[in-house]
């Protein structure tokens, strides 16, 4: 994590990973909250405060103070996410956007509409990233809506830095006896 994100610079960093790297983003929000205020925009209802509290406790003894420094907003539709980003002031607070594309993959939203809304979101993310670090996590679309993979591509293309995290393979139990080749 340290190599990937610290020190955070004023740029748009996009992480693409299974489950939208939510565990990583929660850990990152905990670390940032120990240092100062931050803004978290949750697009996939993935911000579970219990793991964050545990991670904060590892960083600082001021649990309540650190949690109070996290300004959390949730969006449940892509229009809400677009509005949320549009209304976010560029006040220099680091911004974490968790699972940005979750609502954009909704079957009920046409691809063209998703693309239009995402283009607006990207503009606002770039605006915010001029004054503070912005870290966005996203996941790839499910096979049922694979055509919406262009949204993830557009997001990655707009980023100042883009990382694709892959799940580690399950550890293999060592055999008691060497298998014959």
């Amino acid at each position: 994590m340290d190599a990937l994100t610290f020190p955070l610079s004023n740029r748009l960093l996009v992480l693409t990973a299974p489950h939208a790297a939510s565990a990583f983003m929660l850990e990152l929000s905990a670390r940032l909250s120990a240092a100062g205020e931050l803004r978290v925009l949750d697009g996939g209802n993935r911000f579970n405060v219990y793991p964050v509290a545990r991670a904060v406790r590892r960083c600082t003894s001021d649990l309540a103070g650190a949690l109070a420094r996290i300004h959390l907003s949730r969006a449940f539709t892509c229009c809400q996410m677009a509005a949320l980003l549009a209304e976010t002031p560029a006040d220099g607070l680091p911004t974490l956007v968790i699972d940005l594309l979750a609502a954009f993959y909704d079957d009920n939203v046409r691809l063209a509409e998703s693309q239009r809304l995402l283009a607006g979101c990207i503009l606002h993310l770039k605006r915010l990233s001029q004054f503070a670090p912005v870290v966005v996590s996203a996941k790839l679309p499910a096979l049922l809506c694979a055509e919406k993979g262009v949204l993830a591509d557009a997001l990655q293309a707009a980023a100042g830095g883009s990382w694709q995290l892959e799940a580690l393979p399950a550890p293999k139990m060592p055999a008691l006896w060497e298998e014959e080749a």
Partner: protein
Amino acid sequence: MGRTLPSITQAFIQEQEAFSRFRRALRRGDQLALDDLFASARQHLSAAAYAAHALPMETFLLSMLLEQHKEILRLRQQMAELTGDLDA
């Protein structure tokens, strides 16, 4: 719109599952004792929900301590009654 926070019962089950490997490594008797501890914490889930603590495991541990202390008080009272009977 779904839940934005796991219920206290979900949090309790998650915390209990987090110790499953620890439990598996214990002797059978110790496993039963550990199960008793979690069962005693489960009795106070409604109070834990009301407390809304950011670290629910702390509330569960306090619930376990509460039940342990109640047991000590009960045994102390029994002991006092028995010693009182002997003195009489």
